[in-house]
């Protein structure tokens, strides 16, 4: 087992994060097509409500009057001030997830478990750019959420214990790890575990960025970051973890907790401060 928590490979994450940011920058800088007429809309677009639900296809209900199906952050982020620059808003992660064919299903599954869809979206954005990628050499982590077999099974167990009805949506066996919708259930369950662990150490309202530490380093080591001074080094905060493991997770010698959290937050956007649970 590669000691990278139960989840991702940071090397891959860095690349994905960069590409995501690049895509966002390109998108924000592009001019509207000539044939389009710009409109200002208030709230989400009108949702098409089917008369008959297609079997096996979950229904995502968007509440009219809200900005989006979930709330990101506390609304105090560094939104676009109108200067024409890219806005790395908290909805970036959710938009990236929603752009995937399985994104709406994943959001529905997260909501069925009481997990904030932004927390789930942030996980796949950081882990893979929400691309259903395979495992790289030397690692058993795979899929959009880059889960290892043990973490995948733990997450599934947690999720199904909380909501047994999700069992019907799971692709059984190892094939489930490369089925993004199934892995989303496992990742949601893993985030529930993160919330439980962080609350168990005394953090009353765990955030997405705090869940990142749990996702990478597990409960005992990961929760230590949530209870450390930002100026403390990551190495000092997790005294049981070796320098080899820290390096595998992309932690550089002397890197502080504040720097690590800021790096995570820059990949996530302002959903970093959102709660793990809805």
């Amino acid at each position, binding site marked *: 087992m590669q000691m990278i928590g139960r989840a991702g490979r940071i090397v891959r994450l860095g690349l994905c994060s960069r590409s995501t940011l690049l895509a966002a920058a390109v998108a924000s800088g592009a001019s509207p097509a000539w044939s389009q007429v710009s409109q200002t809309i208030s709230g989400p677009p009108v949702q098409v409500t089917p008369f008959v639900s297609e079997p096996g296809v979950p229904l995502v209900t968007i509440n009219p009057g809200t900005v989006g199906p979930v709330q990101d952050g506390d609304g105090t982020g560094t939104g676009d001030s109108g200067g024409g620059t890219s806005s790395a808003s908290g909805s970036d992660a959710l938009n990236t997830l929603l752009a995937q064919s399985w994104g709406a299903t994943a959001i529905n599954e997260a909501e069925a478990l009481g997990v904030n869809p932004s927390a789930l979206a942030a996980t796949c954005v950081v882990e893979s750019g929400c691309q259903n990628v395979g495992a790289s050499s030397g690692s058993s982590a795979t899929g959009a959420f880059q889960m290892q077999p*043990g*973490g995948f099974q733990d997450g599934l167990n947690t999720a199904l214990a909380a909501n047994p009805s999700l069992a019907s949506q799971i692709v059984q066996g190892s094939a489930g790890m490369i089925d993004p919708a199934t892995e989303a259930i496992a990742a949601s369950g893993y985030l529930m575990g993160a919330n439980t662990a962080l609350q168990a*150490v*005394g953090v009353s309202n765990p955030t997405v960025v705090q869940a990142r530490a749990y996702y990478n380093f597990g*409960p005992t080591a990961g929760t230590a970051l949530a209870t450390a001074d930002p100026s403390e080094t990551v190495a000092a905060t997790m005294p*049981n*973890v070796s320098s080899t493991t820290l390096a595998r997770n992309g932690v550089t010698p002397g890197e502080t907790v504040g*720097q690590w959290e800021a790096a995570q937050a820059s990949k996530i956007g302002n959903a970093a401060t959102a709660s793990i649970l809805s």
Partner: protein
Amino acid sequence: MLKIELATVAVCLMALVGPAEAQASGRRLPGYECMMLNITEQQAMDPNFHVEVKAQPLAASSTIGWQPGVVIVKEPAVPNRGYLQVLRANGQKGWIKASLVKPYRAEADPTARCAPEILPNGLIGSGPG
């Protein structure tokens, strides 16, 4: 003149250590010391492994939470019925089996220091001292 020079040095130091270091630090918490869990790296990263914090120094006592890797122990660290009194992140007092705690020494950085703090966000935690 001395004041100006000290201020200049402080500004230079801030620039050297970077923005994260410039964040507000916590306040030292007297009467407590840093120790660490006496567990393996594998255990520290295992989702199914937890060190329980008890309400009282008794095996039969209720569990009030789990313990992160750094343990804030009440000084002097003398066991009471085999348990050490600890302070949780939310300020609640609890007890951990003394055999599960050992002196602080970070694997990845043996020179690292640790001091109990009241963190900028109000939680109890650890800092560089």
